């Protein structure tokens, strides 16, 4: 028998706060959430059992369906947009340009500001009677029309647009770090091979930076699933319910509409979806690799 080893004990002891948080704040909450989703609770939890009633109602709800659709649209647009714009900015900043520090700060600052007001400013800028369209009309271009934020079928794209504005800088920073980490010799080898620069980026550099892209995508995906502030600040879910998102659905039902059972059902669906969609991928990214390295 191995004697108990002190060093293991101190490592375990150091993790006690983490264990407490993981068990109570995370695991406990998740289990509680799932439990409540099977009850008929209103504003306060009630521990009865009504089966899948809340889930049935959830999937009958037009707002939930729209929320999920919007999440998909927003998610794809936001992640792709941030990656593309962030990557372009990173690539251009990596060309030994003058004033790199200034540009970098400009690209990053939106991430430092709360969306409560930057969202409002975007709502203005995109508002047809206040913003760009109005300015263009004032300047004489009266046929100019840009009213997507006011159109139910287009508004979600504008939300995505503002989201990209906020987070592209972060992606830029991550990818810039990745670009800086690429072996100089790869560039030389590609030049000797006569490969055009854009081709090097697409065929060689991007695949090489997959680690950085993963980090960026994980951070962006976390933001997508939780997207709330930006919608509230820019559209409040409107016009109508055309820019509703799941997190807002959960929150509205949690406290305003006083139906925590439905809210937790929605949250559980989100959780399961994340588990199913991202779980295997996260597992591969963070656990399988580790086993191999060990």
């Amino acid at each position, binding site marked *: 028998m191995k004697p108990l080893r002190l060093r293991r004990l101190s490592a375990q002891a150091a993790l006690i706060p983490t264990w407490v948080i993981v068990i109570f704040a995370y695991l406990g909450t998740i289990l509680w959430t799932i439990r409540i989703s099977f009850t008929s609770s209103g504003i*306060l939890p009630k521990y009865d059992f009504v089966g899948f009633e809340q889930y049935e109602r959830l999937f009958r709800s*037009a707002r939930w369906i729209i929320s999920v659709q919007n999440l998909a649209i927003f998610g794809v647009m936001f992640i792709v947009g941030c990656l593309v714009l962030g990557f372009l900015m990173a690539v251009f900043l990596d060309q030994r340009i003058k004033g790199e520090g200034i540009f970098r700060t400009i690209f990053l600052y939106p991430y430092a500001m709360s969306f409560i007001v930057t969202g409002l400013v975007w709502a203005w800028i995109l508002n047809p009677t206040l913003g760009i369209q109005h300015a263009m009309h004032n300047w004489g271009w009266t046929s100019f029309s840009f009213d997507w934020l006011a159109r139910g079928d287009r508004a979600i794209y504008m939300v995505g647009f503002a989201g990209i504005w906020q987070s592209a800088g972060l992606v830029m920073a991550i990818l810039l770090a990745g670009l800086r980490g690429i072996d100089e010799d790869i560039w030389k080898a590609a030049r000797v091979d006569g490969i055009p620069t854009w081709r090097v980026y697409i065929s060689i550099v991007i695949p090489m930076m997959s680690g950085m892209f993963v980090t960026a995508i994980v951070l962006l995906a976390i933001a997508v699933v939780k997207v709330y502030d930006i919608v509230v600040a820019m559209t409040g879910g409107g*016009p*109508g319910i*055309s820019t509703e998102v799941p997190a807002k659905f959960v929150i509205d039902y949690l406290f305003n509409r006083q139906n925590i059972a439905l809210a937790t059902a929605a949250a559980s669906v989100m959780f399961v979806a994340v588990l199913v969609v991202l779980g295997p991928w996260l597992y591969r990214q963070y656990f399988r690799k580790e086993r191999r390295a060990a």
Partner: protein
Amino acid sequence: ADKAEVIHWWTSGGEHAAVMEFEKAFDAQGGDWVDAAVAGGGGDAARTDGINRIIGGNPPTAMQFNTGKQFDELVSNGLLRNLDPLAKEYGWKDKINPVLLNAVSVDGHMYAVPVDIHSNTWLWYSPEVLKKAGLEPPKTWDDLLTDLAALKKDGVIPLAQAGDAWTQVLTFYNVLITQGGKDLYMKIIKDHDVDAVKSPEFLKVAETFGKLRDYVDPGMQGRQWNQAIALVIDNKAGFNFMGDWAKGEIDVNKKVPGKDVGCIPGLGHQTYWVGGDVFVFPKVKSKAEQASQALLAKVLLEPKVQLAFNEKKGAVPVLKDVSSEGMDQCAQKGLALLKSGDYVPSSDILITPDMSGSIQDLVSAYFTDKSQTPQQFVDQFAAIIGG
């Protein structure tokens, strides 16, 4: 002095002035008002905060709710103080307007103090804009639609509508109550009568409401209620549907309700749609705080305070025996309806926040999407009421 921490969401200019009246009166009687205003979303943030604090065992002394079912469940879980002893002491049950008394009572026990009566839906108009366009204030819904069309032709914003969903719901109820009538409203909202929803009358309501979609401007999205009424006040738009709290904004702009800005309590059936604000008093342990609650409750319902508060708030006092003297034209019209019995309880009083949320989703989706037909609207409405 005893501290009383009060959560509310009265943060706009008019509301700020009004709530100051409460504070002054309370402090004058030895209390110590600790203000806990939380703005935003028609009280969302404030309610989130308050409810969590009650659950967390650290309740505020008092907390604002809208008249209605928002706090029912807190009552059934025994989290709110029963106000019956106070009501008996001060004789509130006789003095308070019965609609409101009903609304703050659960199983005959009083759990909240109503502080104002609002009519949640009026039609406001700009006499100047109408005059310029050579129009008369409308008498019927058809008049209104004609006027709107005329204004649209003139290039004026016909209907100043805000983008927030709840303002669109107000507009909808205005059509429902004043075009469809009190009975239709009660059958649908109180009795959840699906047949009433499927009746031709309701379809007509849906059609009229749908027609309004044509008269809003593209700037609606992102506009808040006060900006919408401001358009009417500034003579930039013809009409606006909003509750009587709009008068607060009119006052702040140094205009006179009923004169500079016209008010119509209903185009067909003139009806007072009773809503309002209440304060609840969560159960607290400390005796001192309980005393504070008692004091605050008493102050809130003192006639003098009621008058001062409601004047600033643009509402009507909850006490039956207040004189209409000194009130503006619009308030007087409202009070007359109240006295004549031409009133209905607001939907908040009749249905759960859950259902009212579903209705809100439906109404705002319909109002902002012209491709939806009235019939679709009716069917979905029936689904909500029926299920």
